[in-house]
């Protein structure tokens, strides 16, 4: 508004961007250094690239399993949340249900709950109450998929509601008049029109599930450990393998970075419960 010279702004923003990007760059630097070089004088400039840390991570059977678990859990959770959220939004948008705005508001409050508080009750419920015979949800992928719904399902409903509300009601009413079944209307009339919104929701719920650590660390022991818990296992008091830890971090970071460009504008909308349109 005030200054006419853009160079000062650009210089300022290059500086800010440097502050944002440098820590991420540093992560990469550490991940491509052999352990011996790490403890010499910290060096900002990369002189040689050492890929062994990445190869070690990929060759580690446990970590490969964790990666697979992470993939299955986040994909399953994203698909489940987007599907259920889509149905729920359709119901909230098209039907005259009593108290539906209260229901909508209540679903959102689920996302605000601090996860640390729910560690103990979820752990107890999963070991003591939610079990059929010998099968308990603890330490299973399906259990984690369901638990992640507590924060991802409200998010999916929140982001999908405007999309579904935006589809003209006349379209599905016309289809109903033509004698289409409700299932057909949802899958063949509404669903194709919602595709962009559904894609964004799917991606973001996937990333949130992929990023989650606290619940995964407490509600799994062995079978359903995710990559983020694998990362914390590499930080021990007896001596952390810094290079490996950095390499795992990079692996965990990659999916988020890939989708970042696509969903950038929606992140803020999602994180602020829609208070701000990004």
């Amino acid at each position, binding site marked *: 508004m005030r200054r006419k010279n853009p160079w000062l702004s650009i210089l300022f923003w290059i500086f800010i961007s440097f502050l944002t990007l440098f820590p991420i760059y540093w992560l990469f630097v550490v991940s491509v250094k052999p352990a011996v070089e790490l403890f010499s004088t910290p060096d900002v400039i990369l002189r040689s690239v050492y890929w062994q840390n990445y190869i070690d991570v990929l060759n580690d059977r446990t970590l490969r399993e964790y990666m697979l678990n992470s993939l299955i859990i986040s994909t399953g959770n994203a698909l489940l949340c987007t599907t259920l959220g889509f149905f729920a939004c359709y119901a909230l948008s098209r039907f005259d249900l009593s108290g539906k705005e209260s*229901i909508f508001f209540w679903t959102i409050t689920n996302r605000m709950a601090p996860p640390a508080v729910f560690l103990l009750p979820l752990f107890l419920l999963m070991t003591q109450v939610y079990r059929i015979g010998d099968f308990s949800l603890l330490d299973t992928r399906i259990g984690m998929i369901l638990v992640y719904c507590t924060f991802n399902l409200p998010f999916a409903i929140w982001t999908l509601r405007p999309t579904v509300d935006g589809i003209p009601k006349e379209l599905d009413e016309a289809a109903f008049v033509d004698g289409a079944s409700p299932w057909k209307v949802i899958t063949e009339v509404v669903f194709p029109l919602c595709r962009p919104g559904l894609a964004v929701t799917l991606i973001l719920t996937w990333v949130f599930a992929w990023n989650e650590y606290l619940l995964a660390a407490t509600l799994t022991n062995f079978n359903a450990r995710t990559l983020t818990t694998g*990362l914390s296992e590499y930080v021990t008091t007896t001596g952390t393998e810094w290079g490996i830890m950095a390499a795992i971090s990079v692996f965990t970071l990659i999916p988020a970075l890939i989708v970042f460009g696509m969903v950038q504008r929606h992140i803020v909308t999602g994180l602020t419960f829609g*208070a701000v349109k990004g």
Partner: protein
Amino acid sequence: MQSRKLGWLLLAPTLAVLFLFGVVPFFYVIYVAFHQWNPFAANPEMIFNGADNFRQVVFDAGFLASLGVTMAFVFFAVLTELIIGYLLAQAFMKDFPGKAIFRTIHTLPLIMAPIIVGSIWKLMTTPSIGIIPHLLDSWFGYDLNIGQSAGAAFAITVIMDVWHWTPLVTLTLIAALVSLPPDPFEQAQIDGANKRQIFWHITLPMIAPAVVATVFIRLMDALRTVDEVLMLTGGGPGSATRYVGVHIFKEVFPRTNYGYGSAVSVIVLYLTIVVCWLLYVGMLAPRNTKKG
């Protein structure tokens, strides 16, 4: 409209999942909090013991200390984020080439997993590996050791939180600033108001709802910060960075004293709900009075 039954049918799975993993745990934790329950104690059964768990909690020095440091952390982190976020938002109000790219870069930390942020800052600040202690040492001769100095560890967790979450504040405030009408500012300039007067009397009141909303969201998030701190300092040194979430994860959950742990969880939940509600009221109150 079509039958309501179909609507409820479509809503049912969502409500069922949120009921089982949201509502039931909420009431279950309150229920357990009123019991003595330790499966590895002499009596592993669940025994109702009234409010005894809460009697213990209010004298639990470790828990009270963690509440104290949490409040300090939230205060410093959210305040710093607000100030920096506001300045950056103002800087974004000008037009300059490459604005979109800088904005994208600035948004980047938001999508990163908290635990990765923790691991990044651990690699940045661990003595003998990190670049920050090295530079501080060679430039100022200051020995930064987050494993030993409580103050340094606390400061680094705040800096980490600021790095991670300031973009959110910036973007919410940009949205607020963009929607401001230009007239009051022009009028104030004609009347000869200086920059500080314009900020306090025009800008701030007009963006106040957005600021409150941002504080509300950041406060909620800062109160449940666990992953990054756990990764960076593990709550240490001592209990310098053992924020309530970290406290529950490290000190309460691993012990099998379920009744007591539930009582601690209930108190944290209570405080979160109260803070949340106060801010919600603070956000709605101006609107209500406006309506008259």
